[in-house]
């Protein structure tokens, strides 16, 4: 039943107040939600161009093997030497920027494009590469590996 005692004005005003209230509420949500999410720190808590936490555990990389990882926008190569030490270098060959790889039978780093060889200190030991690979600093704990740019 339509309530005839309420003047049409009042119901219009009621609708208006409802509209205003809901819109203000909606606005607060639509403004507050982004700000709230913004303030929550993202997973990678800081820029990955200077330091990178590797997505695999130390036990996943055996001696005399290597893994390619992402360092900033460029590839890096993490090598566990036969002696068990972890070393990391830029995987961009200093000759013509191909991605290097680890050769187990040679025990050092090699570039397939023009047969460039790098030793486990990153030094260019044979082939065309004119400069050593840039070395990174590796920090290994029980459950994670962190690679960062040297000073």
């Amino acid at each position, binding site marked *: 039943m339509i309530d005839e005692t309420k003047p049409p004005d009042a119901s219009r005003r009621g609708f208006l107040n409802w509209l205003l209230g809901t819109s203000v509420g909606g606005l607060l949500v639509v403004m507050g939600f*982004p*700000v709230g*999410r*913004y*303030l929550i720190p993202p997973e*990678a808590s800081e*820029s*990955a161009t*200077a330091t990178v936490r590797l997505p695999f555990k130390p036990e996943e990389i055996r001696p005399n093997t290597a893994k390619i990882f992402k360092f900033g926008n460029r590839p890096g190569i993490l090598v566990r030497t036969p002696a068990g030490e972890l070393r990391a270098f830029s995987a961009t060959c200093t000759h013509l920027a191909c991605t290097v790889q680890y050769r187990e039978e040679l025990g050092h780093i090699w570039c397939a494009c023009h047969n460039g060889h790098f030793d486990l200190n990153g030094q260019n030991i044979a082939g065309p590469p004119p400069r050593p690979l840039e070395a990174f600093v590796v920090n290994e704990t029980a459950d994670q590996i962190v690679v960062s740019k040297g000073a």
Partner: protein
Amino acid sequence: MLARPNWLGDAWRWLDARLDLSYVQQIAKKKDVPVHRHTIWYYLGGMTLFLFMVQVATGVLLLFYYRPSAEEAYESVQFLMAEVEFGWLIRSMHAWAANLMIFTVFIHLFSVLLLKAYRSPREITWLSGVALLGLSISFGFTGYLLPWNELAYFATRVGTEIVGVVPFVGSFFLSFLRGGTDVSGATLTRFYAIHVALLPAAAAVFLGLHLFLVQKHGMSIPDSAEASEQRGRAMPFLPNFLLRDLIGWLSALAILASLAAFFPAELGVKADPFQPAPIGIKPEWYFMFMFQSLKYLPAHILFIEGEVVGVFAFGLAAVLLLLVPFLDRRSIRGERERLFIWLGIAAIAFIVVLTILGYTANPTQ
């Protein structure tokens, strides 16, 4: 009237007993705004204030992630854009609101100038307003460098270079601004300090003064409105004018959000001091008219370097702008006056034409 819940009324009474809120309420109820065909220009001051508040809010949020050193600034902005949720939104809104705010500051300035709202007793309001104009432009100049990208680096180099052109004190100010002889990480840190601490403090002071005086003197009524039949009409500030203000602010918010979504702030490449300047370095649009007019000056005027003359001319123009209420003698005497209006229109035309030229003329000229 809306029915207030009881607790709201109790809270009001509690605060009123301690803060004398009813005094404020009285003043607010009495405050009204003249209504005439130039009323629309009254909204500009509030719009500028709203955009400034947006800047402060987004600026504070940006502080959570930005790092002010040459080694980390660019990367931190990149990180903000790519990894932080809605980081792109906050940064893009900050960049767009900056541009919109400076735009409205200029329109507000020119509307006040042309409607002669600077007349007595509003001279100090005008002075504080010109100071706020200078602060806004300084905010823009210092903030622009902070992402430490290529365009900003070279724009800052050119901009600070022009400061050094002033004889005697120029090189001191140049090295003071730059934190050294060249634009470097020291410049970045210095600009950061100026942008987030020094300028906000100064802005708070001048803005407080400006708003207090606007409140005290009320809105100025232009002569043409005085003479018309509409004389005497007014609307209450609360809630009529404020609600209209809110509509304007909400529209600005919607526009800002759209600009941020469709034209997010760009970053470009990181600044490299050892690379040559890319062709066609341009300053931000609000500097363009000065930049372009300097280009048109001959190398030497009489025996003075053209650039020095240009810098002095703009300096003089700024001083004249500041002194308008005192120079407009006719208005002081209460007479009708057209010269300053024509000068104002000429200034607008000059700025618009040179800004357009700045973007259309060949960069290598």
